[in-house]
């Protein structure tokens, strides 16, 4: 793939969605990761490494994003580059800590690999910083993860960020309570994950529902804002909403003030079971990171424990910090 521009210049390309980091940028990235690492360590999260390459069958057990890069090893086994750190750490807990007393706290700073369209703040190889809190159920575990998240973001110097908080099971529960079959509900959930409220509205119109019920199914996932918006969400979603209130009630004021409730929040990874959250900053048009509860994931690796975690995109965090700096 070596290309010659002219007699003196030779270009050796690197794969689409990857990039080099040179010293000036690296110093800034280091400042960010060191600030975040300090918070993680202080809060008792021990740093781990896992292999960038894992057996595809092992990763597939976790149900995360499908791998984009695969190779055969010398025995003909299929290896895949990890697409997140949550699934490898679930494997690590089940195999390396089979009998350890929970809760277990881990953090990581690791590159992950996805087959995405490269654009600003989104490469195919990108650095994530995150934690996994294993064996601590809702609401306490969720509140702890949100607190660590906010402390880490504040430690980097980011000022304008907010945390969107929702529940991955909320909309499915709502659909079932109105008697919508799961096969039909899947199409509605797909529209919600695709952020397509026009498709959601037209799918709802095709169902034989009361107007009031259809309105409710369209309105609830658009509810977002401060704690007072939860007053509008009664009935079938009351249990999920009460769960979000319990989490919120456990947060220190400086963390609680950052939270926006978002009843339509749907993360696209398959393993989330309860509370889910995303980080927003006005200086960037895409979330800086996110996470949530995945209470069934550890069980798939043979150590059933409730768990919660989050990952921050370091490149996006860097862009948002630079953006905030430019605004002042």
């Amino acid at each position, binding site marked *: 793939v070596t290309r010659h521009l002219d007699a003196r210049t030779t270009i050796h390309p690197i794969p689409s969605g990857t990039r080099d980091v040179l010293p000036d940028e690296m110093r800034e990235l280091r400042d960010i990761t060191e600030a975040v690492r300090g918070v993680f360590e202080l809060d008792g999260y021990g740093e781990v490494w896992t292999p960038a390459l894992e057996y595809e069958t092992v990763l597939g057990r976790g149900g995360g994003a499908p791998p984009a890069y695969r190779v055969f090893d010398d025995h003909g086994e299929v290896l895949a580059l990890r697409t997140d750190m949550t699934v490898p750490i679930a494997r690590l807990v089940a195999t390396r800590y089979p009998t350890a007393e929970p809760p277990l706290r881990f953090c990581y700073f690791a590159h992950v690999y996805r087959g995405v*369209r490269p*654009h*600003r703040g989104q490469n195919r190889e990108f650095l994530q910083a995150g934690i996994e809190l294993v064996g601590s159920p809702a609401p306490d575990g969720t509140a702890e993860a949100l607190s660590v998240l906010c402390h880490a973001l504040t430690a980097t110097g980011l000022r304008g960020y*907010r945390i*969107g908080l929702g529940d991955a099971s909320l909309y499915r529960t709502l659909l079932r309570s109105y008697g919508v079959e799961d096969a039909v509900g899947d199409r509605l959930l797909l529209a919600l994950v695709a*952020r*397509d*409220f*026009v*498709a959601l*509205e037209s799918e709802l119109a095709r169902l034989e529902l009361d107007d009031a019920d259809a309105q409710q199914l369209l309105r609830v996932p*658009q509810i*977002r*804002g401060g704690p007072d918006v939860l007053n509008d969400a009664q009935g079938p979603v009351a249990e999920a909403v009460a769960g979000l209130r319990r989490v919120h009630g456990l947060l220190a004021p400086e963390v609680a003030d950052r939270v*926006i409730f*978002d009843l339509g929040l749907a993360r696209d990874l398959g393993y989330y079971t309860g509370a889910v959250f*995303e980080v*927003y*900053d*006005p200086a*960037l*048009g*895409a*979330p800086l990171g996110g996470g949530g509860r995945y209470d069934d994931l550890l069980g798939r690796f043979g150590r059933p424990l409730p768990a919660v975690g989050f990952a921050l995109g370091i490149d996006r965090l860097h862009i948002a910090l630079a953006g905030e700096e430019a605004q002042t």
Partner: protein
Amino acid sequence: VSLGLTIAVPRGALLKDTLDHLDALGLDTSEIRTNDRKLLFGDIGVVTMRPSDVPTYVEAGAADVGITGKDVLTEQPERDVYELLDLGFGRCRMIFATVDGPDPSAEALRRLGVMRVATKYYKTAAAYFEQTGRQAEIVEVKGSVELAPLTGLVEAIVDLTATGTTLRENNLVIREELFVSTARLIANPVSHKLKAAAIDAMLEKLRAP
């Protein structure tokens, strides 16, 4: 007066109806109507651009919300934006057409196993033929698509049509309709959370008959 939002507005066929809707929101759009060279109208929070650039600006957060056609959104499925409302105007159809008479695309499929299709909507056309189980070689053209089947470049076209006049004048007939396109209101995913009140107020006014 602005709505506290940056709005990406499409120039071209959707412009007039879009501006009528913005008037109804209380924005003064008279300068946009009279000045077709100026692109940025900061006092009312409007930026104007080609319809196909609207998702780019909204996804990146350079605009909080935008208005563009469903045809554009279908052609750019990877854009991470909220699709909030079908505004109903700018109605047109994405169609599959060939010259009149015996269907040359069917004949090409039967004898050669693949048909050639000219379009400006590469991804839309490729996805449609994949879903309907037909092998197609998509030929991307930038200008008048109707010319391609008349010269033997392709057997068929996929294109957007409002009235069908241009198709008829070029002896082309619609064989299939892919979907109906109308103007949509889209929003940046972060603005949708951080400027929820402004966006919901805009939605409510646009929904009102």
